[in-house]
């Protein structure tokens, strides 16, 4: 059931430090969790790198957008960056090439709007499904809290809040992405980036908390059974000792009685012997009486 360390091989903890090999003698229930956390960390780093590449990648277009803003004299970057606005600008051109380009951009604008609507619907469904899952988890953890496990309950309380925030913030992030897809402004890209970074941190914290909570729970369970089994062992050892002590006392008492009996017997025999001797002596004495 549990995968873990063996007597011959050491292993690394999640922070990379080596755990001495061959100690404990127990299977490690966290080997799987550690492997998964390591895989998740890799994935998290990949997400982080990707997000940081957005601005490098968008750098040239961002500077062009700003130039364009100045050119049009507009205050909002959004107005100049949206696909419909580009289509409108394109329509101003009268030559055939510009007209063709305008049609192409116009079609793209319609397609983009449809794409955003479709995407939003799908993502929203995903959020709802996630929220249903969260509610189940919240109930499960609420039940555990009711079992009176203080340490776990404290984290479960935090976890409940996290799960509720997950559902709400996911929805907000989906909206931010949809909004950026529509307008493509720098401000909205920044908002998406901040949202992704925040979610990245929260997902990471959630995974770490789940891992630590499980460790605490395992330690708690093991301690509960250790206490129970050791109490039984101690009671058994005490009962064995008491029985042995009682037997020794009984043996000693018996020995003492036997000694007394023997002494009494000897005394009686002595008295009998003396009485006999006295009686014999009496008879001897009697023979000497004139």
């Amino acid at each position: 059931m549990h995968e873990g360390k063996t007597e011959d091989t050491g292993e690394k903890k999640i922070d990379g430090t080596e755990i001495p090999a061959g100690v404990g003698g127990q299977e490690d229930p966290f080997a799987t969790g550690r492997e998964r956390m390591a895989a998740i960390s890799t994935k998290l780093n990949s997400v982080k790198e990707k997000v940081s590449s957005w601005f490098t990648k968008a750098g040239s277009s961002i500077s062009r957008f700003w130039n364009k803003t100045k050119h049009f004299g507009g205050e909002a970057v959004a107005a100049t960056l949206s696909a419909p606005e580009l289509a409108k600008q394109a329509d101003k051109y009268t030559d055939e090439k510009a007209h063709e380009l305008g049609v192409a951009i116009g079609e793209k604008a319609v397609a983009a709007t449809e794409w955003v609507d479709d995407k939003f619907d799908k993502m929203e469904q995903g959020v709802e499904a996630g929220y249903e899952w969260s509610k189940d988890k919240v109930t499960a953890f609420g039940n555990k809290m009711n079992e009176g496990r203080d340490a776990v309950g404290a984290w479960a309380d935090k976890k409940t809040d996290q799960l509720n925030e997950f559902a709400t913030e996911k929805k907000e992030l989906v909206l931010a992405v949809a909004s950026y897809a529509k307008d493509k402004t720098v401000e909205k890209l920044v908002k998406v980036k901040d949202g992704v970074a925040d979610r990245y941190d929260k997902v990471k914290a959630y995974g770490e908390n789940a891992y630590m909570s499980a460790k605490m729970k395992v330690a708690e369970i093991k301690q509960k059974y250790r206490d129970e089994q050791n109490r039984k062992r101690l009671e058994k050892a005490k009962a064995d000792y008491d029985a042995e002590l009682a037997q020794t006392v009984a043996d000693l008492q018996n020995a003492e009685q036997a000694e007394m009996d023997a002494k009494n017997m000897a005394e009686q025999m002595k008295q009998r012997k003396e009485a006999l001797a006295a009686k014999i002596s009496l008879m001897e004495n009697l023979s000497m009486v004139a």
Partner: protein
Amino acid sequence: MNKQEFIDKITNSPLSADRKNKILALLSSGELTFDIKEEIKDIIQEDIDSDNTSMSDADKADIAASNVQMETELSAVENDLAGDMQFVEAELNSLEEMVKEVDGIVDQANIESLQSKIQEM
């Protein structure tokens, strides 16, 4: 009790020499973390469990049943952790998907910017 006092207690304890050495190695490996403390507890318990000389068959059966119950509870925790890890993975996959989509939108913005530039020429 400080660490040195605990080391002295272990050294003078009735634990087996082998287990004493394992514990002393753990104690000297660095900070006395939660994980290290749990490992030491496991070793001490292992030593306690190794002495079954005065245990009757009924006592042994009782302990074995208790261990089965403990394993069941530990499995429940492991399953819970696996569920949490799945949730984290699913959330990350979703986040990764979102990042890819935004990446695509950034590309699209670049294309549109280029098209706009062409229009101005």
